[in-house]
């Protein structure tokens, strides 16, 4: 499944808020079948980068190539259609809508029987969502909302899953569960994953490759193992 063919390529990407630049020319790539982790401290630019990849954050320079197509200026819905799905920071579920509505909205751009098949797949992955599928999503616990956000993203049938700090605010046991699911998605469903985390240890442990971002620039890159062993990474992000 894993190959060296890039599914997502980011070249010298620049983006910011008003006059303040948050990404100063970020270059990186995600190959098919990989889990790639991007780690960095709060405010480093991780969320800005993921939003730029999804097209909900304007870019001022550089390029984003996905699956052979330049999507730098594509609308967000065009990118979803091509196979980019994001689980955003803070989950961002549709609280007043039912759990099933949330999931079906994940498949907003799809048609036909695939939707019901994938809905069953998501319910198999997260049985708790099935039990409560008629309830408003806002009533779910933090961990369950994270499952819902992941399920919703999967409902688009993505080639690339972007995850923005899925472990944030979760109890340790739930964090483990989320990372197990991410691994399972790569191994069993062939989904390529681009994972952004402050929880560097957990992310790099399951990642094929990783990047470190500091104040809007990539500072270190390597395999997950290499980064876990890197002195600078250990000192700055692993607290050892």
């Amino acid at each position, binding site marked *: 499944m894993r190959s060296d063919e890039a599914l997502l390529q980011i070249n010298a990407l620049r983006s910011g808020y008003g006059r303040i630049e948050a990404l100063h020319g970020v270059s990186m790539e995600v190959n098919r079948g990989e889990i790639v982790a991007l780690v960095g401290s709060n405010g480093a630019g991780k969320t800005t980068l993921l939003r730029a990849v999804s097209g909900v954050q304007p870019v001022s320079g550089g390029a984003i190539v996905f699956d052979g197509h330049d999507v730098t200026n594509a609308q967000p*819905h065009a990118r979803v259609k091509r196979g980019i799905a*994001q689980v955003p920071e803070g989950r961002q579920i*549709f609280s*007043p*809508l039912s759990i099933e509505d949330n999931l079906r*909205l*994940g498949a907003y751009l799809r048609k036909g029987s695939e939707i019901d098949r994938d809905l069953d797949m998501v319910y198999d992955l997260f049985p708790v969502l099935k039990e409560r599928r008629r309830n408003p999503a806002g009533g779910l616990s933090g961990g369950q909302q994270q499952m819902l956000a992941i399920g919703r993203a999967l409902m688009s049938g993505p080639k690339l899953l972007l995850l923005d700090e899925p472990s944030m605010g979760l109890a340790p046991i739930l964090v483990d569960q989320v990372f197990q699911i991410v691994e399972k998605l790569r191994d069993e469903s062939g989904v390529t994953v681009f994972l952004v985390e402050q929880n560097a240890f957990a992310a790099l442990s399951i990642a094929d490759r990783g990047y470190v971002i500091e104040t809007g620039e990539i500072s270190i890159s390597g395999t997950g193992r290499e980064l876990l062993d890197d002195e600078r990474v250990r000192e700055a992000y692993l607290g050892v």
Partner: protein
Amino acid sequence: MAEFLQFCASGLTVGAVYALVALGFTIIYNASDVVNFAQGEFVMIGGMTTVFATAAGVPLPIAVLIAILAAMVIGLLLHRLAIEPARGASPVTLIIITIGASIFLRGLAQIVFDKQFHSLPAFSGDTPINIGGALVLPQSFWVLGGAVVIVIALWAFFNRTVTGKAVLATAANRLAARLVGINTSFVIGLSFVLSAAIGAIAGILVTPITLTSYDIGTLLALKGFAAAMLGGMGNPIGAIVGGLLVGLLEAFGAGYISSTYKDAMAFIVILGVLFVMPGGLLGRASVERV
């Protein structure tokens, strides 16, 4: 008793119009956070276009369709030309833009139509129906029935169609809506078109009772806005309840106290309620159902 029923009937009739205006506010507000003070102009456009089309010899049903379509086009243009270009502006800026649009539309109506008051013949005649001693115009049933049909149609749209769900999703979380592939700009445009159509229908149905003129929109927008605030801004059920309450307050105020101050009295009661319950009677709550 007959008098009481009489006030109820007239209060519910105008209240239904306020409720529809308030629903228009709510739909746009939920989808886009914009408080659209040009909402009253949609009511005016509905009534005035029907009046002038029928005067030109167009049969009423077709005139009605033309009027609704005209309002929808204006609603779409309002979004595309005035709201969308100002995306990201502060709420106050957006409110000023809609007030500007409302003044512009009134000016335009003065030129395209005229400055006179106009009426339409009642759809089912003028013979009042006696209900417990109260004399109710048949047109009142058109207004109330129209409001009920619109509310049911909206409910079905929001709860039973994918596009309706997309509007609710946009209202609940715009970022997440874009991330699942909803074209939120289309959804917000749709909310303007929908609100325009609702306003126009209200304007058409009520014109035989209240008359219409180029400048009726201002007061209607104020009353509709007050109704939406009274029920809880953003809450569709609140908008309906608030609209009916404002209509009843006016009718009873005018009937039992003084018709000179009926507008003021409704606003005083609303201010009183909002002072005690800042979120409105039903709270700003959920956009779950309409």
